[in-house]
């Protein structure tokens, strides 16, 4: 944050000299986007702690390292290929064909590129938690790069790509997704679902007679800290979509916050009705579900709508987690409920609660088309890629490696070597 402060000071002093102490709107906007870049990058810390806390201690190093490395490699893939596919000159509204490995000439475009790279990293990292505790490290990284370089940008080009004359096909239909509830979150969630269907549940998660075994995370305080960091970072994730004159920034930030509050309330209500106890994982995920839900329309929702959309998102998180378990889909951190289902719900909610034009059937249908397209593309492409990858190399660790924990079998390290209860040895 010191860096951000210095940037602010430097930019402001430069402006004072250049234009008689009048801060230009362009400059302020650039600084704001830079801050948003840092906030979105900081969300990775949130993901890292949330996912690290939700796995068993024998897999901590693995999931944290996956989060750490996919930011670097994923954003590199996005810079090299993804940005061009997403924002290059559109080929029939399907994908971009120019601007690969971009090298922008001005600061504003550079910041735009960096901001989009941070978004791409978010799409990739969603999968890491879902497939935790059994997915091999290197195949995961390959998958993360493919998601950020190809799967996410192609869908992104449909929604945000092209120009007015030659827009992405969903954009042309009038599909609206302010900051990526579907483009980033649902695509990440559905890609994770594709990987999960292919890789199967952790051994022992579902019993031989169909019973579901709870596998609690090893550090629930990490989960809450990670959740709060994500909440904090979300102001940058959504706030970066503000207009250049900041006329809607306050609305976006307030609605973002209200979405989270709604999500918490929804999760608490559902948990209390079902008398399951006020589970920290469900409530934190409820807050995140609320945040994802308002991401598509934080600039077009009223405050009341934001609260309601987040509230329903919070309920969706808890309900859909149980639904997945019934289908024997083992999503370790609840990534699919939070990102997949809530992203879809929030995007549809734009059709229901668009301020001044609520329940417009035409908009609802267009939003629905976008949601379905994301599901088909995200799930199908990820499934195909991991299926192909599995033909080349095993993507799942062996049962013995899974039993011993991925920290030892993949990294030869133990997360808590001083006090961890394990028979695993780091020196083998």
């Amino acid at each position, binding site marked *: 944050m010191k860096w951000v402060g210095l940037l602010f000071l430097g930019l402001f002093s430069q402006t004072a000299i250049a234009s008689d102490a009048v801060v230009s709107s362009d400059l302020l906007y650039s600084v704001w986007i830079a801050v948003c870049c840092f906030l979105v990058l900081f969300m990775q810390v949130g993901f890292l702690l949330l996912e690290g806390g939700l796995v068993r201690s024998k897999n901590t190093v693995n999931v944290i390292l996956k989060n750490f490395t996919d930011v670097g490699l994923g954003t590199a893939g996005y810079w090299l290929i993804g940005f061009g596919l997403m924002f290059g000159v559109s080929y029939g509204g399907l994908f971009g064909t120019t601007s690969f490995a971009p090298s922008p000439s001005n600061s504003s475009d550079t910041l735009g590129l960096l901001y989009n790279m941070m978004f791409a990293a978010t799409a990739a990292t969603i999968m890491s938690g879902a497939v935790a505790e059994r997915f091999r490290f290197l195949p995961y990284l390959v998958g993360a790069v493919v998601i950020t370089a190809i799967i996410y940008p192609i869908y992104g080009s449909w929604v945000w790509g092209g120009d007015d004359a030659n827009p992405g096909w969903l954009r042309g239909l009038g599909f609206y997704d302010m900051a990526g509830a579907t483009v980033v979150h649902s695509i990440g969630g559905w890609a994770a679902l594709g990987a999960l269907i292919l890789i199967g549940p952790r051994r*022992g998660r579902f019993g031989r007679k169909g019973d579901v075994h709870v596998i609690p995370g090893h550090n629930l305080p990490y989960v809450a800290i990670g959740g709060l960091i994500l909440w904090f970072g979300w102001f940058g994730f959504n706030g970066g979509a503000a207009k250049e004159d900041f006329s809607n920034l306050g609305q976006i930030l307030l609605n973002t916050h209200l979405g989270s509050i709604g999500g918490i309330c929804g999760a608490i209500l559902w948990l209390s009705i079902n008398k399951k106890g006020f589970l920290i994982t469900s409530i934190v995920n409820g807050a995140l579900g609320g945040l994802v839900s308002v991401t598509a329309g934080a600039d077009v929702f009223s405050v009341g709508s934001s609260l309601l959309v987040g509230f329903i998102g919070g309920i969706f998180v808890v309900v859909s987690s149980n639904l997945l378990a019934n289908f024997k889909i083992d999503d370790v951190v609840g990534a699919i409920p939070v990102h997949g289902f809530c992203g879809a719900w929030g995007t549809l909610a734009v059709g229901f609660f668009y301020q001044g034009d609520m329940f417009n059937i035409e908009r609802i249908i267009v939003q629905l088309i976008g949601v379905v397209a994301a599901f088909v593309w995200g799930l199908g492409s990820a499934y195909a890629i991991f299926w192909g990858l599995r033909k080349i190399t095993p993507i799942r660790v062996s049962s013995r490696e899974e039993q011993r924990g991925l920290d030892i079998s993949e990294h030869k390290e133990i997360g808590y070597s001083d006090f961890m209860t394990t028979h695993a040895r780091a020196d083998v």
Partner: protein
Amino acid sequence: MNQQNAKIVYAALTRLTEDRGVIKQAFDHWNSHHGDAELDVVGLTESIVAFLGLDTGEKKVLMVSLHSASARGAGSLADVPSYLIGASNDAINESAIATVAAPGVNKPPVVILADAYCNFINGALRKLSNADREEWIEAIRDEGIAGVKPNVQLALQSIDDGLSLPSDASEDDCKTVCHELTLFLSDVIGPVKADEISYKAIAALLDTNEASRFDPRELLED
């Protein structure tokens, strides 16, 4: 088998539990591994604790009972019932399982430890839930374990009475059996409880004499 020691062991085991199945398992274990040796109360206690998966309180009872029985002398102790001795002799006589832990046959440490590991799980499950134990045994019998020798497979069929792998079981066989039985355990009671029992078993095995000749942690490694 040393008849005097057999009486001492039997007396101590009856103080520990009334469950004839457990007594039989522990008695056979003693007979297989220590039957011809001099009575070493501490060593035998550790061995039975690891074999049955006893907790600290039960370990104390066993050790005190062994001391007490050995101090009383064989003359004042009850005879060993026929169901214990008979079972052991049966094991020797049945040619089909002649290599399955026949009493007096020296087993390599890895086999002894694998037996103890699996029996620890069996004992722990017995305490946890009989239904879970039955499901675990059923899974082992139904699904079997691929990639091990036929006589190892055969030994698994009688796991209900305590596992006794053949003395010619290879290290790989032992590792495969321990790993697969842990996975079955994970399927039955969930991976968290399974890990807990597995950790405890390995910790108990680390205290045995055999651990100095074969590291029990290797049982669950590649």
